């Protein structure tokens, strides 16, 4: 073990990259900053591969004491934990991260803040690695909020609008409007993540209250041992679910993900497709020992996943922005993963996470190439027939679409099929939702493909093929998207699902009891769903009615969830804030008011001080008369 590179190297390398690029940007003129950042992530990838290859028992390396007495009656220390799950995640992050860094060098080539972009990307990769390798929940929370911060920085990368110095006023106005929308999107993402983080924190507090420690290895031992009230674990798992939902953009905290498309495309590919959004799934998978003891919470997770998948698919039907379609499809695919981990089919969920990372990153990068080629044009209705101008990108996009649609051989088929099998095994309604979503997914991805690549070119300007530096990542991802499925060929198809065994060593698997016949039936249904979806899209394309998808406005405004939040949550909170402010300013006036009218009754007395001796004498008389009168009455009363 000692010869292996230390675990803390993984997050340290990109962090160093971030520090250097932020503090000394002038040292890296031109694109050298980009190459440095990519090199750092590459190095991290190599370390991850080395640690992945010679993995024995889970490695636990601790550094220094960090939080006061949050471990078993000791201070919680910063430490990294490498088991099969986190090794795989590290591989995905660094691998896909490296490819996307490579892609960004050309994509962001002429952006004025080139170096800063790579600094933020490195910072993101470092935080994601901390999240994945953390040995304790608080350290995972560091990564958790760190990636939230990185996504805030990257979504709001063009916070002042790309052509704010442009000459003509009309372009400037558009750029200013874009600046405001970008900044709002970034802020919205961060605040929504923060809401999820509150849930995560409360979950941690409850776990500490139940078990007295927040270090995951210690927690795992104590959970099996201690017989803690079922309700406690259920609530803790629900809190963790809220955290996962916040980070992975599931219902109800999902409206920030489509808005996050305001960031540059590599950001959408890396953060909002491959890595950050899967953090929620990783959290649930990492806390499998809790969720196994909390059946209700797990059904909650499954149902949240199922409903979000449906919501994402429905919203994606009629989007006109090339990246928005992919964003909603990410939401929907994440719904699948939550569905899987909710049903305790952790390996199926993680496998889908893997394949999804590949083909969704591929699709986003392809979309990026298209946007780049059409000079920042993102509206699919102004595209079409690009297969003639960009043959290579077209080819990889076909691979991506087939993968996501779940066509056999491509990876999407295997991972989605595993999830549907698990769903069928445990709850029929969820399986039906899953199947329906598979159909819708096939349709909107087909629509995406036909609108962008097929038909006549509706835009102006002359699109050109991407340069070589862009092609390399696209090619690699296309290969991975196609071949990744073979990692986990299910038994009834003659494979030995190597992936399930690998993950099984970290997370206990549930035996499959479905007879082979039904498995075949499920696979046929899944393939049928994919084919019908694509066919429906093809027919609509032939009729040229693809521009406006079904469900029209309902889908375009994503079931009006955004509008709902605005006037249910943000408007009243603003109003209350205003009211509180006036109340707060009011307290001082109230005090002055009391002072002012206290002098009122005082005025009456001045009249009485009239200066006339006899007035005083009268008051003296009345006074004495009253006193003696009282005295006399008392004596009468007492019958003297």
């Amino acid at each position, binding site marked *: 073990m000692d010869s292996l590179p230390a675990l803390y190297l993984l997050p340290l390398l990109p962090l160093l990259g971030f520090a250097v690029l932020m503090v000394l940007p002038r040292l890296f003129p031109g694109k050298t900053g980009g190459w440095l950042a990519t090199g750092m992530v590459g190095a991290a990838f190599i370390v991850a591969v080395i640690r992945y290859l010679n993995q024995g028992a889970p490695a636990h390396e601790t550094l220094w004491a960090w939080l006061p007495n949050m471990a078993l009656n000791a201070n919680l220390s910063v430490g990294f934990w490498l088991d099969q799950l986190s090794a795989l995640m590290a591989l995905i992050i660094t691998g896909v991260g490296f490819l996307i860094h490579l892609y960004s060098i050309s994509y962001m080539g002429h952006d004025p803040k080139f170096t800063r972009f790579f600094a933020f990307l490195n910072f993101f990769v470092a935080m994601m690695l901390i999240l994945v390798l953390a040995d304790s929940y608080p350290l995972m929370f560091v990564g958790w909020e760190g990636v939230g911060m990185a996504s805030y920085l990257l979504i709001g990368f063009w916070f002042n609008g790309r052509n704010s110095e442009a000459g003509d006023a009309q372009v400037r106005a558009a750029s200013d409007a874009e600046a405001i929308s970008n900044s709002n999107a970034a802020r919205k993402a961060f605040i929504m993540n923060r809401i999820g983080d509150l849930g995560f924190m409360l979950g941690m507090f409850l776990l500490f209250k139940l078990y007295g420690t927040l270090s995951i290895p210690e927690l795992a031992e104590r959970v099996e041992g201690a017989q803690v009230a079922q309700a406690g674990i259920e609530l803790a798992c629900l809190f963790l679910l809220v955290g996962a939902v916040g980070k992975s953009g599931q219902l109800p905290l999902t409206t920030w993900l489509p808005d996050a498309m305001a960031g540059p495309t590599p950001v959408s590919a890396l953060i909002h497709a491959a890595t950050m959004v899967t953090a929620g799934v990783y959290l649930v998978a990492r806390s499998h020992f809790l969720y196994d003891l909390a059946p209700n919470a797990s059904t909650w997770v499954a149902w949240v996943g199922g409903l979000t998948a449906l919501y994402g698919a429905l919203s994606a039907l009629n989007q006109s922005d090339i990246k928005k379609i992919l964003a909603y499809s990410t939401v929907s695919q994440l719904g699948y993963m939550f569905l899987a981990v909710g049903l305790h089919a952790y390996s199926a969920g993680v496998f889908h996470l893997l394949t999804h990372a590949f083909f969704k990153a591929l699709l986003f990068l392809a979309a990026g190439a298209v946007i780049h080629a059409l000079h920042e044009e993102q509206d699919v209705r102004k595209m079409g027939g690009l297969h003639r101008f960009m043959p290579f990108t077209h080819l990889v996009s076909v691979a991506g679409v087939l993968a996501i649609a779940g066509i056999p051989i491509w990876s999407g088929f295997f991972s989605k099929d595993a999830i549907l099998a698990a769903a069928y095994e445990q709850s029929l309604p969820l399986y039906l939702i899953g199947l329906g979503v598979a159909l819708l997914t096939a349709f909107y991805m087909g629509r995406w493909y036909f609108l962008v690549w097929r038909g006549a070119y509706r835009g102006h300007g002359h699109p050109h093929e991407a340069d070589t530096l862009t092609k390399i990542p696209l090619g690699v991802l296309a290969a991975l998207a196609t071949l990744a499925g073979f990692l986990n060929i299910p038994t009834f198809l003659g494979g030995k699902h190597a992936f399930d065994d690998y993950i099984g060593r970290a997370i206990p698997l549930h035996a499959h009891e479905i007879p082979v016949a039904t498995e075949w039936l499920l696979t046929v249904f899944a393939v049928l769903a994919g084919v019908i979806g694509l066919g429906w899209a093809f027919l609509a394309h032939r009729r040229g009615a693809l521009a406006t998808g079904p469900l029209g406005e309902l889908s375009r405004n994503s079931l009006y969830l955004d509008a709902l939040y605005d006037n249910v949550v943000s408007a009243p909170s603003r109003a209350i804030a205003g009211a509180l402010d006036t109340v707060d300013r009011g307290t001082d006036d109230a005090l002055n008011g009391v002072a002012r009218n206290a002098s009122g009754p005082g005025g009456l007395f001045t009249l009485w001080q*009239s200066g006339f001796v006899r007035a005083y004498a009268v008051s003296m008389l009345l006074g004495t008369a009253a006193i003696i009168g009282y005295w006399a009455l008392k004596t009468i009363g007492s019958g003297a």
Partner: protein
Amino acid sequence: MVPTTSYLALSGILFALGMIGVLTRRTAIMVFLSVELMLNAANLALVAFARSWGDPTGQTAVFIVMTLAAAEVAIGLAIIVAIFRKRETTNVDDLAALKG
């Protein structure tokens, strides 16, 4: 032997009369007269108590009050004359310089 209570009642009435006099009269001299009346009322009560207690102190007190009254009248009237010379008025209400 006339009971002391009747003497006290009489002195009370006289005292009240004096009091009313002080309040209703508008010139300083008249106010003084009423004050004298009140003093006499007090003396009467003192003597009545002296008899009921059988102790001459009451009477000596009256004696001292009388001398006091005399002195007071002297000084009071002197003041009134001085005020009169300054303000040419004996009306009590004009003398309101110490207005609050």
